[in-house]
């Protein structure tokens, strides 16, 4: 969380895409597939060309579950920019997702 702890990542920031997102899913469960679809839609719509999305299937790498302290699935971890945030769910609540990602919602009612 503290960017000073990882100077490499810090220095690297300007070069990589603005948004670094890790999405942890569990196989092809309805929640997971919905989550993948929703997050892709959101990113394409609001962060086009500014993001990097990594999708991890925890079933394939179960040790990651502990490492990443996963409880609810699907979980999206926003690594950049700003504070690390965790978003749990299938991202059907678009307003919340955008708020959590720090993306200003487009003008006008959603």
């Amino acid at each position: 969380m503290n960017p000073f702890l990882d100077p490499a990542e810090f220095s690297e920031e300007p070069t990589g895409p603005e948004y670094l997102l890790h999405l942890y899913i569990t196989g092809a469960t309805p929640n997971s597939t919905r989550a993948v679809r929703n997050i892709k839609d959101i990113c394409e719509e609001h962060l086009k060309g500014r993001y990097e999305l990594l999708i991890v299937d925890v079933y394939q790498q179960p040790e990651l579950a502990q490492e990443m302290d996963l409880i609810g699935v699907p979980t999206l971890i926003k690594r950049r920019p700003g504070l690390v945030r965790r978003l749990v769910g299938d991202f059907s609540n678009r307003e919340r997702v955008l708020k959590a990602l720090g993306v200003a919602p487009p003008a006008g009612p959603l």
Partner: protein
Amino acid sequence: MQEHSPSVATALPKLPKSPTGIEGLDEITEGGLPQGRPTLICGSAGCGKTLMGIEFLVRGIQNYNEPGVLMAFEETASELAANVASLGFDLPDLQAQKMLRVDHVHVDRSEIEETGEYDLEGLFIRLGHAIDSIGAKRVVLDTIEALFSGFPNQGVLRSEIRRLFRWLKDKGVTTIITAERGDGTLTRQGLEEYVSDCVILLDNRVIDQITTRRLRIVKYRGSTHGTNEYPYLITEDGISVLPVTSLQLDHPVSDNIMSSGVPALDEMFGRRGFYQGSSVLITGTAGTAKTTLAASFAEKVCQQGQRCLLFAFEEAPQQLLRNMKSVNIDLASHVASGLLRIEASRPTINGLEQHLVTLHRLVKEFRPDAIVIDPITNLVSVGNTAEVRSMLTRLIDFLKVSGITALFTALVSGRGQHEMTDEGVSSLVDTWVSVRDLEGIGERNRGLSILKSRGMAHSNQVREFVVTEHGIKLLDVVVGPIGIVTGASRLTQQLQEQAQTLAAQQETDRRDRELERRRRVLEANIANLRTEFESVEEELRQINTEAQNRQETLTSGNLRIGAANPPRRDTPAPDEKV
């Protein structure tokens, strides 16, 4: 693992159980927790839920070679390790041996944003991975309710927790789930709905400023179990559920006799002492030498080379040693030789159960032949009467089963009610000696009597005794005009009797002298008479002789005359006979 309840002899297959290895708990649960099923441990803060979970895992690893997974929702692995290190549980070492996995689940609401449908599959994967990686047989979920603070969607959470328990069951791991006690319910979030196989309730009660922890098995599906509330303790070796009262009265008995340490007191018993393994109660009001009697017994035990454990709830060991030395009871040398062990503590230092456990532990360590508790009444300050009675019942039971002779002293208050003790333990003890003040005019004396002695005849007398520089001495019975007398009355009585005896003696002597005098007088009289008689006799004899002489003279004169005149032959001479 499945045959831990040999007492229940049945051909039917029994519920397989996982022994917890926690002292006492396996006895109550008759073998352990249900194997392959979840068990709920609920209790309020500070009950030792987490500790019980960890001990279950550690004992499983150490005693039964069953690896375990600890999923902690509240404390981190390092915190947990530090907390239990004092109990000798080395979690990092067990983790290094791949026998234990500790997974700290960090739940922080502020970090989590719910954005739609989700499930707790992440938790399942973590747990599944942890279980599979070390082949765990035991799992502890320490306060899964922490999830409720992190995930607001209760519907999802509840269905997922239900699924989790089902999943753990299918995995065949024995699971302990700890949960915080709720208000009026077993758990705050109603987890008992989901865990229906075994529920253990821990309770932390403060009565009169003293805390007692208790454990109760609320339910145990498919198995019998102890239903009482069992006190338990967190000791240096982990949790210790209190030694259960033995259900049957079938302990072996001994025919050997132990001396009370006071020879005269032994004489009052039909078999010159107490039975070995029996329990003896000495009751009395303040200052009736109960402790001294108890110390005499302890000294006697040690003199015979046996071991004695003395619990002093009133005096410090040094004070006790000094005081007993003043009455020639030398306990110090026995302490030095290791035969006597004095454990002194204030009763209020801990709860009743702690006392009981301390006692159990010491008995196991020290293996005494006799135990002295002075006095048991002080324990009343710790608990209420019912608790004390139940504790003493357990204690006496335990000592009897162990074949240890027990001597308790008890302070009774007031007079006239010596027939009952506050704790009502009198029916539990085998021998009951009562010491009391016999208060007379202006003085108090100590009296001792045997109220009961199971299995042997005993004296019915109230004996006065004194505490001398040479120990306790029972005095001879002195019967006065209105019964047995004691103290100064006894002395007076004795003096009176002495005076009477003296007077009687003098009277006798006087009569003897009178007799002698009379005899002498009579004898003098007799001598007088005899002298008188002798003189009369003498006189008479004199007269006789004179008469005879005269006669002779007369005869010779006649002869001379007859010679001149020849005698006539036909007439005999009458004087010839004289």
